[in-house]
Protein backbone atom coordinates (compact mmCIF):
# COMPACT_ATOMS: atom_id res chain seq x y z
CA UNK A 1 0.00 0.00 0.00
CA UNK A 2 2.85 2.42 0.75
CA UNK A 3 3.75 2.14 -2.90
CA UNK A 4 0.64 4.19 -3.68
CA UNK A 5 1.97 7.10 -1.66
CA UNK A 6 5.49 6.77 -2.97
CA UNK A 7 4.07 7.23 -6.46
CA UNK A 8 1.93 10.20 -5.39
CA UNK A 9 4.80 11.85 -3.57
CA UNK A 10 6.74 11.76 -6.83
CA UNK A 11 3.77 12.93 -8.91
CA UNK A 12 0.54 13.89 -7.19
CA UNK A 13 -1.29 14.14 -10.49
CA UNK A 14 -1.21 10.41 -11.14
CA UNK A 15 -4.80 9.23 -11.24
CA UNK A 16 -6.04 6.33 -9.10
CA UNK A 17 -6.48 4.38 -12.33
CA UNK A 18 -2.84 4.95 -13.30
CA UNK A 19 -1.67 4.01 -9.83
CA UNK A 20 -3.76 0.84 -9.93
CA UNK A 21 -2.12 -0.16 -13.23
CA UNK A 22 1.36 0.67 -11.98
CA UNK A 23 1.04 -1.29 -8.77
CA UNK A 24 -1.39 -4.07 -9.67
CA UNK A 25 -3.52 -3.03 -6.67
CA UNK A 26 -7.26 -3.02 -7.54
CA UNK A 27 -8.66 0.41 -8.38
CA UNK A 28 -11.22 0.38 -5.56
CA UNK A 29 -8.47 -0.35 -3.02
CA UNK A 30 -6.34 2.49 -4.34
CA UNK A 31 -9.22 4.95 -4.13
CA UNK A 32 -10.06 3.84 -0.63
CA UNK A 33 -6.46 4.13 0.56
CA UNK A 34 -6.17 7.65 -0.84
CA UNK A 35 -9.45 8.75 0.67
CA UNK A 36 -8.44 7.44 4.05
CA UNK A 37 -5.00 9.06 3.81
CA UNK A 38 -6.63 12.39 3.03
CA UNK A 39 -8.99 11.97 5.98
CA UNK A 40 -6.35 11.10 8.54
CA UNK A 41 -3.82 13.64 7.23
CA UNK A 42 -1.34 11.10 5.96
CA UNK A 43 -1.64 13.17 2.80
CA UNK A 44 -1.48 16.74 4.07
CA UNK A 45 -2.21 18.47 0.79
CA UNK A 46 -1.50 18.53 -2.95
CA UNK A 47 0.58 21.31 -4.35
CA UNK A 48 2.91 22.25 -7.17
CA UNK A 49 6.61 22.81 -6.68
CA UNK A 50 7.17 26.22 -8.27
CA UNK A 51 10.50 27.76 -9.17
CA UNK A 52 9.59 31.38 -8.38
CA UNK A 53 12.90 32.69 -9.61
CA UNK A 54 11.75 31.84 -13.12
CA UNK A 55 8.73 34.07 -12.65
CA UNK A 56 10.86 36.97 -11.51
CA UNK A 57 9.32 36.74 -8.09
CA UNK A 58 12.08 35.14 -6.10
CA UNK A 59 11.70 35.36 -2.35
CA UNK A 60 14.32 35.86 0.30
CA UNK A 61 14.80 32.88 2.56
CA UNK A 62 16.64 32.56 5.82
CA UNK A 63 17.43 29.77 8.21
CA UNK A 64 17.23 30.98 11.79
CA UNK A 65 18.97 29.06 14.52
CA UNK A 66 17.03 29.61 17.73
CA UNK A 67 18.34 28.79 21.21
CA UNK A 68 15.63 28.23 23.79
CA UNK A 69 15.18 27.96 27.53
CA UNK A 70 13.17 24.79 28.11
CA UNK A 71 10.00 25.23 30.11
CA UNK A 72 8.75 23.02 32.88
CA UNK A 73 6.29 20.32 31.76
CA UNK A 74 6.03 21.37 28.13
CA UNK A 75 9.74 21.37 27.23
CA UNK A 76 10.19 23.05 23.86
CA UNK A 77 6.76 22.32 22.46
CA UNK A 78 4.93 25.39 23.74
CA UNK A 79 7.51 27.85 22.51
CA UNK A 80 7.82 25.97 19.22
CA UNK A 81 4.09 26.37 18.75
CA UNK A 82 4.24 30.10 19.42
CA UNK A 83 6.83 30.34 16.70
CA UNK A 84 5.24 28.10 14.07
CA UNK A 85 1.95 29.98 14.30
CA UNK A 86 3.60 32.92 12.55
CA UNK A 87 2.87 32.46 8.82
CA UNK A 88 6.38 33.75 8.05
CA UNK A 89 7.80 30.58 9.59
CA UNK A 90 7.61 28.10 6.69
CA UNK A 91 9.25 25.16 8.42
CA UNK A 92 10.11 24.63 12.07
CA UNK A 93 12.26 21.76 13.34
CA UNK A 94 13.59 20.77 16.76
CA UNK A 95 17.28 20.01 16.38
CA UNK A 96 20.03 18.29 18.30
CA UNK A 97 23.33 20.12 18.69
CA UNK A 98 24.32 23.66 19.49
CA UNK A 99 20.89 25.21 19.00
CA UNK A 100 17.33 24.00 19.50
CA UNK A 101 15.00 25.15 16.73
CA UNK A 102 15.71 25.59 13.06
CA UNK A 103 13.19 27.99 11.58
CA UNK A 104 12.93 28.60 7.86
CA UNK A 105 11.58 32.04 7.07
CA UNK A 106 10.49 33.45 3.72
CA UNK A 107 10.00 37.13 3.03
CA UNK A 108 10.02 39.67 0.22
CA UNK A 109 13.18 41.44 1.34
CA UNK A 110 16.04 40.97 3.75
CA UNK A 111 14.68 43.83 5.80
CA UNK A 112 11.37 42.10 6.16
CA UNK A 113 13.08 39.03 7.55
CA UNK A 114 15.43 41.01 9.74
CA UNK A 115 12.59 42.89 11.30
CA UNK A 116 10.59 39.70 11.82
CA UNK A 117 13.50 38.21 13.71
CA UNK A 118 14.20 41.36 15.71
CA UNK A 119 10.62 42.22 16.56
CA UNK A 120 8.72 38.93 16.66
CA UNK A 121 11.11 36.06 17.20
CA UNK A 122 13.98 37.27 19.38
CA UNK A 123 11.85 39.03 22.03
CA UNK A 124 9.72 35.93 22.72
CA UNK A 125 9.96 34.73 26.27
CA UNK A 126 12.05 31.58 26.28
CA UNK A 127 14.13 32.56 23.26
CA UNK A 128 17.73 32.93 24.38
CA UNK A 129 19.29 33.95 21.14
CA UNK A 130 19.11 33.70 17.35
CA UNK A 131 21.54 33.40 14.47
CA UNK A 132 20.22 34.31 11.01
CA UNK A 133 21.63 32.70 7.86
CA UNK A 134 20.38 34.07 4.57
CA UNK A 135 20.02 31.60 1.74
CA UNK A 136 22.15 32.61 -1.24
CA UNK A 137 21.41 30.03 -3.90
CA UNK A 138 19.25 26.97 -4.30
CA UNK A 139 20.96 24.06 -5.99
CA UNK A 140 18.60 21.25 -5.11
CA UNK A 141 15.31 21.27 -3.31
CA UNK A 142 13.40 18.31 -2.00
CA UNK A 143 15.19 15.98 -4.38
CA UNK A 144 14.92 18.21 -7.46
CA UNK A 145 17.96 19.86 -9.00
CA UNK A 146 16.87 23.33 -10.07
CA UNK A 147 19.14 23.99 -13.01
CA UNK A 148 21.31 22.30 -15.59
CA UNK A 149 20.06 18.75 -15.30
CA UNK A 150 20.26 17.96 -18.97
CA UNK A 151 20.70 14.25 -19.53
CA UNK A 152 22.93 12.73 -22.17
CA UNK A 153 20.96 10.91 -24.88
CA UNK A 154 20.89 7.16 -25.28
CA UNK A 155 21.22 5.34 -28.59
CA UNK A 156 17.56 5.23 -29.67
CA UNK A 157 17.63 1.78 -31.25
CA UNK A 158 19.81 -0.90 -29.78
CA UNK A 159 19.25 -4.62 -29.96
Amino acid sequence: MNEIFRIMEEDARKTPQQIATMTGIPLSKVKEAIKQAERNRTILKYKAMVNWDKLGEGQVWALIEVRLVPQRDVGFDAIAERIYRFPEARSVYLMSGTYDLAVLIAGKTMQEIASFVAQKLAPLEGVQGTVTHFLLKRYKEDGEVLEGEERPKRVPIMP
Partner: protein
Amino acid sequence: MKDTKRTKERDMISKRVKEIPPSGIRRFFDILASLEGVISLGVGEPDFVTPWHIREAGIYSLEKGYTSYTSNYGLLELREEIARYLKSRYGLDYDPQRELLITVGVSEGLDLAMRAILDPGDEIIVHEPGYVSYMPCTVLAGGVFVPVPTTIENEFKVKAEDIEKRITPKTKALLLGYPNNPTGAVMDREGLRRVAEVAQRHDLLVISDEIYERLVYGVKHTCFASLPGMKERTILLSGFSKAFAMTGWRIGYAAAREEIIEAMMKIHQYTMMCAPTMGQMAAIEALREGEAQIAEMVAEYDQRRRVMVEGFNRIGLTCFEPRGAFYTFPSIKRTGLSSEEFAERLLLEDRVAVVPGATFGECGEGYVRCCYATSLAEIEEALERMSRFVKRHRAR
Protein backbone atom coordinates in the same frame (compact mmCIF):
# COMPACT_ATOMS: atom_id res chain seq x y z
CA MET B 1 48.45 9.17 -54.07
CA LYS B 2 46.66 6.47 -55.95
CA ASP B 3 47.18 2.87 -55.01
CA THR B 4 47.08 1.19 -58.37
CA LYS B 5 47.45 -2.29 -56.97
CA ARG B 6 44.10 -2.12 -55.22
CA THR B 7 41.60 -3.15 -57.81
CA LYS B 8 37.93 -3.67 -57.29
CA GLU B 9 38.21 -7.33 -58.25
CA ARG B 10 40.04 -8.52 -55.20
CA ASP B 11 37.70 -9.01 -52.27
CA MET B 12 39.43 -8.11 -49.07
CA ILE B 13 36.74 -9.08 -46.59
CA SER B 14 36.88 -12.50 -45.01
CA LYS B 15 34.27 -15.08 -45.88
CA ARG B 16 33.58 -15.58 -42.23
CA VAL B 17 32.56 -11.98 -41.74
CA LYS B 18 30.55 -11.99 -44.93
CA GLU B 19 28.64 -14.95 -43.67
CA ILE B 20 27.10 -12.70 -41.03
CA PRO B 21 24.08 -10.89 -42.46
CA PRO B 22 23.99 -7.11 -41.96
CA SER B 23 22.05 -5.94 -38.92
CA GLY B 24 18.39 -5.39 -39.74
CA ILE B 25 18.14 -2.30 -37.63
CA ARG B 26 20.92 -0.19 -39.10
CA ARG B 27 18.62 1.49 -41.62
CA PHE B 28 16.42 2.68 -38.78
CA PHE B 29 19.29 4.89 -37.67
CA ASP B 30 19.08 6.84 -40.92
CA ILE B 31 15.33 7.25 -40.63
CA LEU B 32 15.69 8.29 -37.00
CA ALA B 33 18.28 10.89 -37.87
CA SER B 34 15.81 12.58 -40.21
CA LEU B 35 12.93 12.77 -37.74
CA GLU B 36 12.17 14.91 -34.73
CA GLY B 37 9.98 14.25 -31.72
CA VAL B 38 10.51 10.50 -31.79
CA ILE B 39 9.77 8.52 -28.65
CA SER B 40 12.05 5.56 -28.50
CA LEU B 41 10.98 2.24 -27.08
CA GLY B 42 13.87 0.79 -29.05
CA VAL B 43 16.58 1.35 -26.46
CA GLY B 44 18.38 -1.56 -24.85
CA GLU B 45 19.70 -0.04 -21.66
CA PRO B 46 18.52 1.54 -18.42
CA ASP B 47 17.37 5.16 -18.45
CA PHE B 48 18.86 5.64 -15.00
CA VAL B 49 22.28 7.15 -14.73
CA THR B 50 24.74 4.98 -12.77
CA PRO B 51 24.06 5.68 -9.06
CA TRP B 52 26.21 8.57 -7.89
CA HIS B 53 28.20 6.66 -5.27
CA ILE B 54 29.35 4.25 -7.99
CA ARG B 55 30.28 7.06 -10.37
CA GLU B 56 32.05 8.74 -7.49
CA ALA B 57 34.11 5.60 -6.85
CA GLY B 58 35.18 5.70 -10.50
CA ILE B 59 36.20 9.34 -10.20
CA TYR B 60 38.06 8.64 -6.97
CA SER B 61 40.00 5.84 -8.66
CA LEU B 62 41.19 8.33 -11.27
CA GLU B 63 42.16 10.84 -8.61
CA LYS B 64 44.18 8.17 -6.85
CA GLY B 65 45.93 7.35 -10.09
CA TYR B 66 44.50 3.91 -10.87
CA THR B 67 45.21 4.33 -14.55
CA SER B 68 47.31 1.29 -15.36
CA TYR B 69 46.43 -2.24 -16.53
CA THR B 70 45.07 -4.70 -14.06
CA SER B 71 45.81 -8.42 -13.96
CA ASN B 72 44.50 -10.15 -17.09
CA TYR B 73 41.91 -11.82 -14.91
CA GLY B 74 40.82 -8.45 -13.54
CA LEU B 75 41.32 -6.93 -10.10
CA LEU B 76 41.47 -9.67 -7.50
CA GLU B 77 39.46 -7.49 -5.14
CA LEU B 78 36.63 -7.38 -7.66
CA ARG B 79 36.79 -11.13 -8.30
CA GLU B 80 36.62 -11.72 -4.56
CA GLU B 81 33.61 -9.45 -4.32
CA ILE B 82 31.90 -11.35 -7.17
CA ALA B 83 32.70 -14.70 -5.55
CA ARG B 84 31.12 -13.47 -2.32
CA TYR B 85 28.09 -12.23 -4.24
CA LEU B 86 27.55 -15.51 -6.09
CA LYS B 87 27.95 -17.41 -2.84
CA SER B 88 25.48 -15.34 -0.87
CA ARG B 89 22.92 -15.02 -3.65
CA TYR B 90 23.00 -18.49 -5.24
CA GLY B 91 25.07 -20.59 -2.86
CA LEU B 92 27.76 -21.00 -5.52
CA ASP B 93 31.44 -21.53 -4.70
CA TYR B 94 33.79 -20.02 -7.25
CA ASP B 95 37.48 -19.63 -6.56
CA PRO B 96 38.24 -15.98 -7.28
CA GLN B 97 41.80 -16.89 -8.24
CA ARG B 98 40.99 -19.50 -10.85
CA GLU B 99 37.32 -19.59 -11.72
CA LEU B 100 36.44 -15.97 -12.41
CA LEU B 101 37.41 -13.64 -15.24
CA ILE B 102 36.50 -9.97 -15.55
CA THR B 103 35.43 -9.21 -19.12
CA VAL B 104 34.60 -6.15 -21.19
CA GLY B 105 30.88 -6.63 -20.69
CA VAL B 106 28.99 -9.84 -21.28
CA SER B 107 29.58 -9.02 -24.95
CA GLU B 108 33.21 -10.01 -24.65
CA GLY B 109 32.30 -12.88 -22.34
CA LEU B 110 30.13 -14.38 -25.09
CA ASP B 111 32.88 -14.06 -27.66
CA LEU B 112 35.49 -15.60 -25.36
CA ALA B 113 33.22 -18.45 -24.32
CA MET B 114 32.46 -19.39 -27.92
CA ARG B 115 36.05 -19.15 -29.07
CA ALA B 116 37.29 -21.09 -26.07
CA ILE B 117 35.04 -24.10 -26.62
CA LEU B 118 34.11 -24.33 -30.30
CA ASP B 119 36.12 -26.11 -32.98
CA PRO B 120 35.21 -25.60 -36.63
CA GLY B 121 31.91 -27.32 -37.26
CA ASP B 122 30.97 -27.69 -33.60
CA GLU B 123 27.31 -26.98 -33.04
CA ILE B 124 25.75 -24.84 -30.37
CA ILE B 125 22.03 -24.93 -29.74
CA VAL B 126 20.44 -21.57 -29.00
CA HIS B 127 16.83 -20.63 -28.37
CA GLU B 128 15.18 -17.91 -30.42
CA PRO B 129 14.10 -15.17 -30.11
CA GLY B 130 17.35 -14.26 -28.45
CA TYR B 131 20.01 -11.64 -28.18
CA VAL B 132 21.48 -10.57 -31.51
CA SER B 133 25.09 -11.41 -30.64
CA TYR B 134 24.60 -15.13 -30.17
CA MET B 135 24.65 -16.06 -33.84
CA PRO B 136 27.53 -13.77 -35.00
CA CYS B 137 29.68 -14.81 -32.03
CA THR B 138 29.12 -18.45 -32.96
CA VAL B 139 29.99 -17.87 -36.60
CA LEU B 140 33.08 -15.80 -35.79
CA ALA B 141 34.26 -18.61 -33.55
CA GLY B 142 33.85 -21.05 -36.45
CA GLY B 143 30.89 -22.82 -34.86
CA VAL B 144 27.52 -23.74 -36.25
CA PHE B 145 24.49 -21.97 -34.85
CA VAL B 146 21.49 -24.24 -34.35
CA PRO B 147 18.37 -22.27 -33.44
CA VAL B 148 15.48 -23.64 -31.38
CA PRO B 149 12.28 -21.66 -31.71
CA THR B 150 10.27 -20.78 -28.62
CA THR B 151 6.63 -19.76 -28.73
CA ILE B 152 4.22 -17.48 -26.95
CA GLU B 153 2.16 -20.54 -26.01
CA ASN B 154 5.03 -21.55 -23.74
CA GLU B 155 5.72 -17.92 -22.81
CA PHE B 156 8.97 -18.04 -24.80
CA LYS B 157 10.57 -20.52 -22.43
CA VAL B 158 12.73 -23.09 -24.17
CA LYS B 159 11.64 -26.71 -23.85
CA ALA B 160 14.21 -29.35 -23.04
CA GLU B 161 12.67 -31.75 -25.56
CA ASP B 162 12.98 -29.18 -28.34
CA ILE B 163 16.67 -28.85 -27.51
CA GLU B 164 17.16 -32.58 -27.37
CA LYS B 165 15.65 -33.08 -30.84
CA ARG B 166 18.41 -30.94 -32.31
CA ILE B 167 21.34 -32.65 -30.68
CA THR B 168 23.80 -34.32 -33.08
CA PRO B 169 27.23 -35.86 -32.50
CA LYS B 170 28.64 -32.40 -33.26
CA THR B 171 26.69 -30.61 -30.56
CA LYS B 172 29.10 -29.12 -28.06
CA ALA B 173 27.04 -26.69 -26.06
CA LEU B 174 23.73 -25.01 -25.33
CA LEU B 175 23.20 -21.34 -24.82
CA LEU B 176 20.58 -19.96 -22.47
CA GLY B 177 19.68 -16.29 -22.31
CA TYR B 178 17.18 -15.80 -19.49
CA PRO B 179 15.75 -13.41 -18.34
CA ASN B 180 15.37 -12.94 -22.04
CA ASN B 181 16.10 -10.12 -24.40
CA PRO B 182 13.81 -9.51 -26.39
CA THR B 183 10.80 -11.29 -24.86
CA GLY B 184 11.22 -10.63 -21.14
CA ALA B 185 10.64 -14.34 -20.51
CA VAL B 186 12.02 -15.99 -17.39
CA MET B 187 12.70 -19.72 -17.09
CA ASP B 188 11.30 -21.46 -14.03
CA ARG B 189 13.47 -23.81 -11.99
CA GLU B 190 11.71 -26.93 -13.24
CA GLY B 191 12.19 -25.98 -16.88
CA LEU B 192 15.87 -25.34 -16.26
CA ARG B 193 16.23 -28.63 -14.42
CA ARG B 194 14.98 -30.47 -17.48
CA VAL B 195 17.47 -28.61 -19.65
CA ALA B 196 20.17 -29.58 -17.15
CA GLU B 197 19.22 -33.24 -17.56
CA VAL B 198 19.65 -32.95 -21.32
CA ALA B 199 23.06 -31.32 -20.85
CA GLN B 200 24.08 -34.13 -18.52
CA ARG B 201 22.75 -36.91 -20.74
CA HIS B 202 24.59 -35.65 -23.82
CA ASP B 203 27.67 -34.28 -22.05
CA LEU B 204 27.20 -30.67 -23.16
CA LEU B 205 28.45 -27.34 -21.89
CA VAL B 206 25.95 -24.60 -21.16
CA ILE B 207 26.69 -20.94 -21.73
CA SER B 208 24.26 -19.05 -19.53
CA ASP B 209 23.88 -15.34 -20.24
CA GLU B 210 22.32 -14.03 -17.04
CA ILE B 211 22.95 -10.33 -17.52
CA TYR B 212 19.32 -9.56 -16.56
CA GLU B 213 19.55 -11.76 -13.46
CA ARG B 214 18.54 -8.94 -11.09
CA LEU B 215 15.72 -7.57 -13.19
CA VAL B 216 12.86 -9.93 -12.35
CA TYR B 217 9.39 -9.04 -11.16
CA GLY B 218 7.48 -11.15 -8.69
CA VAL B 219 9.46 -14.30 -9.54
CA LYS B 220 12.81 -15.68 -8.45
CA HIS B 221 15.71 -15.98 -10.82
CA THR B 222 17.37 -19.38 -10.83
CA CYS B 223 21.05 -19.29 -11.63
CA PHE B 224 21.66 -22.21 -13.98
CA ALA B 225 25.03 -23.04 -12.41
CA SER B 226 23.32 -23.53 -9.04
CA LEU B 227 21.38 -26.58 -10.26
CA PRO B 228 22.81 -29.89 -9.04
CA GLY B 229 25.83 -30.93 -11.08
CA MET B 230 25.65 -27.90 -13.36
CA LYS B 231 28.46 -25.73 -12.01
CA GLU B 232 31.01 -27.93 -13.79
CA ARG B 233 29.15 -27.64 -17.11
CA THR B 234 28.21 -23.99 -17.03
CA ILE B 235 29.90 -20.86 -18.28
CA LEU B 236 28.03 -18.25 -16.32
CA LEU B 237 28.11 -14.80 -17.90
CA SER B 238 26.86 -11.74 -16.12
CA GLY B 239 27.79 -8.15 -15.54
CA PHE B 240 27.06 -4.70 -14.29
CA SER B 241 25.45 -3.08 -17.34
CA LYS B 242 21.81 -3.68 -16.57
CA ALA B 243 21.43 -4.15 -12.81
CA PHE B 244 23.56 -1.16 -11.88
CA ALA B 245 22.82 0.95 -14.97
CA MET B 246 26.47 0.77 -16.02
CA THR B 247 26.29 -0.01 -19.76
CA GLY B 248 28.99 2.47 -20.72
CA TRP B 249 31.51 1.22 -18.16
CA ARG B 250 31.92 -2.09 -19.99
CA ILE B 251 32.35 -4.49 -17.10
CA GLY B 252 31.13 -8.08 -17.01
CA TYR B 253 32.40 -11.39 -15.76
CA ALA B 254 32.59 -15.07 -16.56
CA ALA B 255 32.45 -17.82 -13.96
CA ALA B 256 33.32 -21.40 -14.90
CA ARG B 257 35.60 -24.25 -13.99
CA GLU B 258 39.31 -23.50 -14.03
CA GLU B 259 40.15 -25.12 -17.34
CA ILE B 260 37.55 -23.06 -19.19
CA ILE B 261 38.38 -19.77 -17.49
CA GLU B 262 42.03 -20.44 -18.29
CA ALA B 263 41.15 -20.92 -21.98
CA MET B 264 39.01 -17.78 -22.07
CA MET B 265 41.75 -15.81 -20.33
CA LYS B 266 44.22 -16.98 -22.94
CA ILE B 267 42.22 -15.21 -25.66
CA HIS B 268 41.38 -12.24 -23.47
CA GLN B 269 45.02 -11.55 -22.56
CA TYR B 270 46.03 -11.22 -26.22
CA THR B 271 42.96 -9.46 -27.56
CA MET B 272 41.84 -7.27 -24.67
CA MET B 273 44.54 -7.34 -22.01
CA CYS B 274 42.11 -6.40 -19.28
CA ALA B 275 38.79 -4.72 -18.68
CA PRO B 276 38.87 -0.95 -18.00
CA THR B 277 40.45 -0.28 -14.62
CA MET B 278 38.17 2.60 -13.67
CA GLY B 279 35.14 0.47 -14.43
CA GLN B 280 36.47 -2.36 -12.29
CA MET B 281 36.97 0.00 -9.36
CA ALA B 282 33.43 1.29 -9.76
CA ALA B 283 32.12 -2.28 -9.97
CA ILE B 284 33.64 -3.09 -6.59
CA GLU B 285 31.68 -0.20 -5.10
CA ALA B 286 28.54 -1.36 -6.92
CA LEU B 287 28.70 -4.82 -5.36
CA ARG B 288 29.53 -3.52 -1.90
CA GLU B 289 27.01 -0.72 -1.63
CA GLY B 290 24.62 -0.93 -4.57
CA GLU B 291 21.81 -3.20 -3.36
CA ALA B 292 19.49 -0.39 -2.29
CA GLN B 293 19.66 1.25 -5.70
CA ILE B 294 18.91 -2.02 -7.47
CA ALA B 295 15.78 -2.37 -5.37
CA GLU B 296 14.68 1.17 -6.25
CA MET B 297 15.29 0.70 -9.95
CA VAL B 298 13.54 -2.67 -10.03
CA ALA B 299 10.51 -1.17 -8.28
CA GLU B 300 10.29 1.52 -10.94
CA TYR B 301 10.75 -0.86 -13.85
CA ASP B 302 8.01 -2.99 -12.39
CA GLN B 303 5.52 -0.10 -12.40
CA ARG B 304 6.37 0.79 -15.97
CA ARG B 305 6.16 -2.85 -16.99
CA ARG B 306 2.59 -3.05 -15.73
CA VAL B 307 1.61 0.15 -17.51
CA MET B 308 3.08 -1.03 -20.80
CA VAL B 309 1.63 -4.54 -20.72
CA GLU B 310 -1.80 -3.27 -19.75
CA GLY B 311 -1.56 -0.60 -22.44
CA PHE B 312 -0.69 -3.00 -25.25
CA ASN B 313 -3.46 -5.38 -24.35
CA ARG B 314 -5.88 -2.45 -24.22
CA ILE B 315 -4.97 -1.15 -27.69
CA GLY B 316 -5.18 -4.59 -29.23
CA LEU B 317 -1.54 -5.67 -29.38
CA THR B 318 -1.71 -8.87 -27.39
CA CYS B 319 1.13 -9.04 -24.92
CA PHE B 320 2.03 -11.85 -22.56
CA GLU B 321 3.25 -10.74 -19.15
CA PRO B 322 7.04 -10.64 -19.16
CA ARG B 323 8.63 -11.30 -15.80
CA GLY B 324 12.17 -10.21 -16.46
CA ALA B 325 14.61 -7.80 -18.14
CA PHE B 326 12.95 -4.56 -19.29
CA TYR B 327 11.25 -5.57 -22.50
CA THR B 328 7.75 -6.38 -23.62
CA PHE B 329 7.11 -8.35 -26.78
CA PRO B 330 3.62 -7.57 -28.04
CA SER B 331 2.13 -9.39 -31.01
CA ILE B 332 1.47 -7.22 -34.04
CA LYS B 333 -0.10 -10.00 -36.10
CA ARG B 334 -3.52 -8.38 -36.23
CA THR B 335 -2.13 -5.48 -38.27
CA GLY B 336 -1.14 -7.87 -41.05
CA LEU B 337 2.24 -6.13 -41.30
CA SER B 338 5.61 -7.80 -40.96
CA SER B 339 7.53 -6.73 -37.87
CA GLU B 340 9.90 -4.74 -40.03
CA GLU B 341 7.11 -2.96 -41.90
CA PHE B 342 5.35 -2.30 -38.62
CA ALA B 343 8.47 -0.76 -37.06
CA GLU B 344 9.25 1.35 -40.12
CA ARG B 345 5.73 2.67 -40.62
CA LEU B 346 5.22 3.32 -36.93
CA LEU B 347 8.41 5.33 -36.88
CA LEU B 348 7.56 7.35 -40.00
CA GLU B 349 3.86 7.86 -39.32
CA ASP B 350 3.61 8.18 -35.56
CA ARG B 351 7.20 8.61 -34.48
CA VAL B 352 7.63 5.75 -32.10
CA ALA B 353 10.75 3.60 -32.42
CA VAL B 354 10.47 -0.12 -31.66
CA VAL B 355 12.64 -3.06 -32.69
CA PRO B 356 11.23 -5.61 -35.19
CA GLY B 357 10.89 -9.04 -33.60
CA ALA B 358 12.50 -10.72 -36.61
CA THR B 359 15.79 -9.07 -35.60
CA PHE B 360 15.98 -11.67 -32.83
CA GLY B 361 15.36 -14.74 -34.96
CA GLU B 362 12.78 -15.99 -37.42
CA CYS B 363 10.27 -16.92 -34.75
CA GLY B 364 10.32 -13.32 -33.53
CA GLU B 365 8.36 -12.39 -36.66
CA GLY B 366 4.91 -11.12 -35.76
CA TYR B 367 6.19 -9.30 -32.69
CA VAL B 368 8.05 -6.12 -31.83
CA ARG B 369 10.28 -5.44 -28.88
CA CYS B 370 9.39 -2.45 -26.72
CA CYS B 371 11.62 -1.38 -23.85
CA TYR B 372 10.10 0.10 -20.73
CA ALA B 373 13.35 1.53 -19.40
CA THR B 374 12.00 4.95 -20.22
CA SER B 375 9.87 7.47 -18.34
CA LEU B 376 6.21 6.75 -17.63
CA ALA B 377 5.21 9.93 -19.40
CA GLU B 378 6.95 8.71 -22.55
CA ILE B 379 5.49 5.25 -22.26
CA GLU B 380 2.00 6.69 -21.99
CA GLU B 381 2.52 8.99 -24.95
CA ALA B 382 3.98 6.13 -27.00
CA LEU B 383 0.97 3.95 -26.19
CA GLU B 384 -1.36 6.69 -27.38
CA ARG B 385 0.51 7.05 -30.65
CA MET B 386 0.60 3.30 -31.16
CA SER B 387 -3.11 3.07 -30.46
CA ARG B 388 -3.77 5.53 -33.31
CA PHE B 389 -1.43 3.55 -35.53
CA VAL B 390 -3.08 0.23 -34.78
CA LYS B 391 -6.54 1.67 -35.50
CA ARG B 392 -5.38 2.78 -38.92
CA HIS B 393 -3.68 -0.49 -39.72
CA ARG B 394 -6.13 -3.07 -38.61
CA ALA B 395 -6.00 -5.88 -41.14
CA ARG B 396 -9.27 -6.63 -42.85
